[in-house]
């Protein structure tokens, strides 16, 4: 038997002390159904075949592992970029939505719901639904609907119904609440495609498995380019943590690989306008998962802030909370300003405009020094088209 990987979920969905399923009874049958079937279904040959075909011909996988020569020169290290920005719809999110929609079909579900912040997961879900001819309802905070208008139009064009979440801060957390409430009211025909490695078990594990393709490909590609599967560092931004989970997955138990997670500090961790969960959070429960989250002493969840809508979440997935607490990963927080500058730098140095979420990861050079022969793999989780207006406003182009 294979030794159990201590950084993956146990049977009850716990990563160390984090995870589990703290859900109202109304969700129990749905979650239980998913829990009973998901591994069996996704390990079936026919499932794998259908998934791999779609990933190849529809999503455009494998995505390249690109050696960023000029960045490497500038920072005196070997810098590789895993090009998830080249996926169909422009981010890693679609790896998960294609996987989950195939799962939903096999579970006999007819109606898909999802939450979205920046709109990337909403677009990736709407795309998968269009592809499969399924009904699609996207919950999006009323504030985000305003600040991410082009993605709202994309979702609508793809046939999705976008419903504004008007509760709380009217952003990602609230959209997630609304999606969960919808699922409570539609327990039989509906599947909830959650957009990150968050939520009740089995979601964090399910989403991580669908994103794990990122590190699976990276291993083979790095072997080809560097003659070794393992880099010295893997670096990714963390909102809920799905692109990071994908890049880390096959390296979790490889002790020679250092894991770096980059959170959004917003205007700074001491300013009250931040989304740096490990710096500011405490153990608690959010969206059915025991994890680290930003909250007041009374346990009320506080409103996060980040310039990037995709990192504007007050928690992180339980896998990441465990990576943090166990010391397996190093967490760094990056301000809006440094993220924006890093986004601009990558654009000018390599000709790649990254999503602002992704840009946070590239600001790591402000915080850490690397050795000349260190091999670094960044997850270039998404492209910056959706953020153009924010870049324009920020730099006054």
């Amino acid at each position, binding site marked *: 038997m294979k030794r159990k990987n201590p950084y993956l979920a146990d049977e009850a969905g716990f990563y160390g002390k984090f995870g*589990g*399923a*703290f*859900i*109202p*009874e*109304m969700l*129990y*049958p749905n979650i239980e159904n998913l829990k009973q079937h998901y591994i069996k279904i996704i390990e079936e040959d026919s499932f794998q075949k259908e998934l791999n075909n779609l990933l190849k011909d529809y999503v455009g996988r494998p995505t390249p592992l690109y050696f960023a020569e000029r960045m490497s020169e500038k920072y005196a290290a070997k810098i590789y970029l895993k090009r998830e920005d080249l996926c169909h719809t422009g981010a890693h999110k679609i790896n998960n939505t294609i996987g989950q929609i195939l799962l939903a079909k096999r579970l006999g579900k007819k109606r898909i719901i999802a939450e979205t912040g920046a709109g990337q997961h909403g677009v990736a879900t709407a795309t998968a639904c269009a592809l499969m001819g399924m009904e699609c309802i996207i919950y999006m905070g009323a504030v985000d609907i305003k600040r991410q208008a082009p993605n709202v139009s994309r979702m609508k064009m793809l046939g999705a119904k976008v419903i504004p979440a008007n*509760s*709380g801060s009217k952003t990602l*957390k609230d959209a997630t*609440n609304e999606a*969960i*409430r919808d699922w*409570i*009211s*539609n*327990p*039989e025909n509906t599947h909830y495609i959650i957009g990150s490695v968050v939520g009740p078990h089995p979601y964090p594990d399910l989403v991580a498995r669908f994103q794990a393709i990122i590190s699976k490909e990276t291993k083979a590609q790095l072997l080809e380019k560097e003659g070794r599967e393992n880099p010295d560092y893997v670096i990714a931004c963390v909102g809920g943590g799905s692109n990071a989970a994908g890049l880390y997955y096959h390296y979790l138990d490889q002790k020679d690989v250092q894991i770096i997670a980059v959170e959004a500090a917003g205007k700074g961790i001491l300013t009250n306008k931040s989304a740096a969960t490990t710096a500011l959070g*405490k*153990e*608690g*429960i*959010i*969206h*059915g998962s025991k994890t680290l989250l930003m*909250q007041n*002493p*009374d*346990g*009320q*969840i506080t409103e996060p802030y980040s310039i990037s809508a995709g990192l504007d979440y007050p928690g992180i997935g339980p896998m990441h909370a465990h990576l943090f607490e166990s010391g397996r990963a190093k967490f760094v927080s990056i301000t809006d300003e440094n993220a924006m500058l890093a986004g601009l730098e990558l654009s000018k140095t390599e000709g790649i405009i990254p999503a602002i979420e992704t840009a946070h990861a590239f600001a790591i050079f402000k915080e850490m020094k690397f050795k000349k022969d260190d091999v670094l793999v960044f997850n270039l989780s998404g492209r910056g088209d959706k953020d153009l207006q924010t870049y324009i406003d920020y730099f006054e182009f």
Partner: protein
Amino acid sequence: MNNRINEKLNKEGKILSIYFTAGFPRLEDTRKVMLSLQKAGVDMLEIGLPYSDPLADGPTIQESSTAALKNGMSSQKLFEQLEGIRNEIHIPLIVMGYFNAMLQFGVEAFCKKCFELGIDGIIMPDLPLEIYQKEYRGIFEKYNLHNIFLITPQTSQERIRLMDEVSNSFIYMVSSASTTGSNAGFGKEHMQYFERIAKMNLKNKLVVGFGIKDEETFMQATKFTKGSIIGSAFIKHLSKNGIKSIPDFVKTIKS
């Protein structure tokens, strides 16, 4: 161990329980609302501890919770307001909230405080049966607090039996697959569900909640069960008509 909830359940007649949000409409209204409800003849109270992200609640309770939090309500504040409450309130009291609030206060400290104040039961919709049994049952029992479980039309018989075994008060029957505050009324399907569960002959009595809003839905919900719980409809009435009109509301349900 039995407490006021069991005593009430063992008496003749149907039970009307009212859920209200603590600290709403104004922070200092908690006690006034309780006294008025007791005086109007309500049999049991669910004190809603407001939460920022109440997943099982519809818009009405979300809004009252947001307002209460803005007013300054918190676990600590509620416990302060309930100091000496048993000198005035004699009907069973249940605290209903979300588990994170309890976790941050400290589960044992929270239970101890409830016990000292004379609280009889706890409803935490997002504290699942399995985790309760494994980690917290001992603490709840030490402080003689009944933990009340929810079931829905989708809950399996097997699971209901398990909850029945672990419970020592009543089973909270959620009337349909929905969050609180549904306005749809009850049809044949609901009645069949109420009857189906009643026929299981559980050791615990059944109390129905979610979607009860008037005399008609109260009568339907209690046809096969011991009682029912009204939340959103009461909060709507309270928001619109104020504390003075609480007796009028109760009269329309249970004359």
